[in-house]
C-alpha cells in the first residue's frame, strides 16, 4: 500500500534489546513504579462521607421554579415534553381560575406535571426548550429506589419549595446575551 499522506511515522518497534529480553529490568522498573504509588496519597473519594462538588451546570434532577412571589412559572406549553427524546415528561394543562393568581404566574398552568426519572436521560433539552424559565436541571442527584413507581416525580417533588429555593442564577448565564 502506497503512502497516502506524508505525515506518517512507524511507531511500533518489536525488536527487543538484551536488557528487555531478560525480563528483569522491566519487572524491576514496573515494581518501582507501583511501590511509589503504594506510598502516595490516595485519590479515592470516600463517598458518602465525602462528596465531590458538582459543577453548577450539572444535569441532575429537575425542578419547576416559582417566581419571586411564589407563583409557579410553568405555563404548560408542552415544549419540554416535545423536546424530550425519552418521552419522559407528561403534563396536563389547566386554566387558571380567579383567585389563583398568586399560585400560577400565567393564565394556563400544569395541573399535573410528571417526569419519569427512570426514563429520563438527563440530556438537558427540556431546560433548553423552556421559554418561561420554569424547568431547570439541578445539581441534585436523583436517588435510587426500590420501587419503580416512586420514580414518577410529580409536582409535589418537582416544584420548588419557597422555604428551600434553588439558586439557578448560575445555570443559564451562557444563554443570556451579554
Amino acid at each position, binding site marked *: 500500500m502506497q503512502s497516502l499522506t506524508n505525515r506518517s511515522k512507524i511507531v511500533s518497534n518489536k525488536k527487543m534489546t538484551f536488557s528487555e529480553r531478560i525480563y528483569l529490568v522491566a519487572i524491576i522498573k514496573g515494581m518501582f513504579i507501583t511501590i511509589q504509588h*503504594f506510598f502516595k496519597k490516595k485519590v479515592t473519594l*470516600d463517598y458518602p462521607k465525602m462528596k465531590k462538588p458538582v459543577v453548577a451546570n450539572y444535569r441532575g434532577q429537575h425542578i419547576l421554579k416559582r417566581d419571586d412571589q411564589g407563583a409557579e412559572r410553568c405555563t404548560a406549553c408542552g415544549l419540554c415534553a416535545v423536546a424530550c427524546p425519552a418521552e419522559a415528561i407528561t403534563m396536563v394543562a389547566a386554566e387558571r381560575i380567579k383567585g389563583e393568581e398568586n399560585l400560577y404566574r400565567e393564565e394556563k398552568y400544569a395541573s399535573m406535571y410528571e417526569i419519569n426519572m427512570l426514563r429520563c436521560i438527563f440530556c438537558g433539552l427540556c431546560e433548553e426548550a423552556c421559554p418561561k424559565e420554569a424547568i431547570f436541571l439541578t445539581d441534585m442527584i436523583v436517588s435510587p429506589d426500590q420501587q419503580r413507581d416512586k420514580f414518577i416525580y410529580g409536582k409535589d417533588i418537582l416544584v420548588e419549595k419557597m422555604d428551600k429555593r434553588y439558586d439557578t442564577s448560575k445555570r443559564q448565564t451562557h444563554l443570556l446575551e451579554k
Partner: protein
Amino acid sequence: MEVELIFKISLVIVMFAISLGIAAYATYGERKFAAWFQDRMGPSNAGPWGLLQPIADGGKMFFKEDFIPAASEKFLFILAPCIAMLTALMTSAVIPWTTNVVIMGQILSVQVADLDIGILYVLGFVSIGVYGIMIGGWSSNNKYSLMGAVRASSQMISYELAMGLSLLAIIIMTGSLGLREIVDGQTGSFLGFLPNWNVFKQPLGFLLFLICAFAETNRAPFDLPECETELVGGYHTEYSSMKLGFFLFAEYINMFISSAVIATVYFGGYHFPYLNRMISDPNMLAAAGFAVFFAKIFFFLFLYMWVRWTLPRFRYDQLMHLGWKTLIPVAVINLLLTGAVMILKDYL
C-alpha cells in the same frame, strides 16, 4: 514425655490457627495492598479500617447456597476443595518455626515433625495439592473449569522440576534434607559482612525457586488456571459458597507456606545476625526468632502481592517455554556449578 506431647499438640493447634488466621488476613492484606498500589483506599467499611472484611467474607460464604451442578461428579466435586485445603494445611508440619524452647526443664523443638526428609515432604504435599485443582476443574464438567484444570496441572508439573532442581543445589550444599538442619546451617556470616544465608550463596537458585514458587501457588504472573479475563473463574468457575472459600483459602495458605519455605531455605529462617548474641535466655531467643521468621514471611507475602499488582500474566505456551526452555536448563547449570564448587572446596 507428657510435656512434649502436650506441647506438640498445642503447637499443632496454634499453627493451624495461625495458618488460617494468616490466610484470612492475607486476603485482607491483598485487598488493602492492592488498593494502595493502585491509589485506592481498599476495604474500609467492614469494621475499623475494614479489618472485619475477611470475617464478613467467610460469614457470607458459609450462608451462601451450596450449589452442586447437576452435571458434575458429586463426590469428586466435594472432595476437590477438601484436598486443596488439607494439603495446604498439612505442609506446614515440617517447618521449624523458631529455636528450641525450654519448658519445665525440657528442651522442646518448635516444629511439629522434624523429619529427615523435610524438603521432600514439602514438595510431595505441594504436588498433591494440584489434585485438588485438577479434580475440582474436571468434576465441574464445565469447559472453562476443565481448561483451568489442564493448565494448572501442566503448569505445576513443569515448574516442580525446576523447583526441585534449585532445591537440590541447596541440599548438596548443606548435605541434609531436614529443614531444621538447613536453617541451622545458616548461622554466622558469609564473606565477612553478609549474613550466612543461602540466598547469598545461591542467588540464581533463589531466583529460580522464587519464580517456581509463584507458579506453584498460581499467583500472577502465573495465574493462568483461574485467569479471569480468559477462563471466567478457571477451575473454580462452578464452585459457590464455602467450597469456593476453601479454594481461595488454600491459595493463601499455600502462599504463606511457600513464603515460609523460602524464608527457611534461603533467608536463614528464624536466624538473624547477632540475635543469639544479644539474647541469652532460650525462650526469649525463641520468641525473637519467631518474630524474625514471621517478619521474613510477611515480606515474601508482600512480595507476592507486589508482583501480582505489577505484572501482566504469561500466555499458556510462553509459560511452558519459560519453564522448560529457560528455568530447567538454568537450574541444571546452577546445580552443576554448585556441585563443582563443592568438589573444589574439598580439594582446597
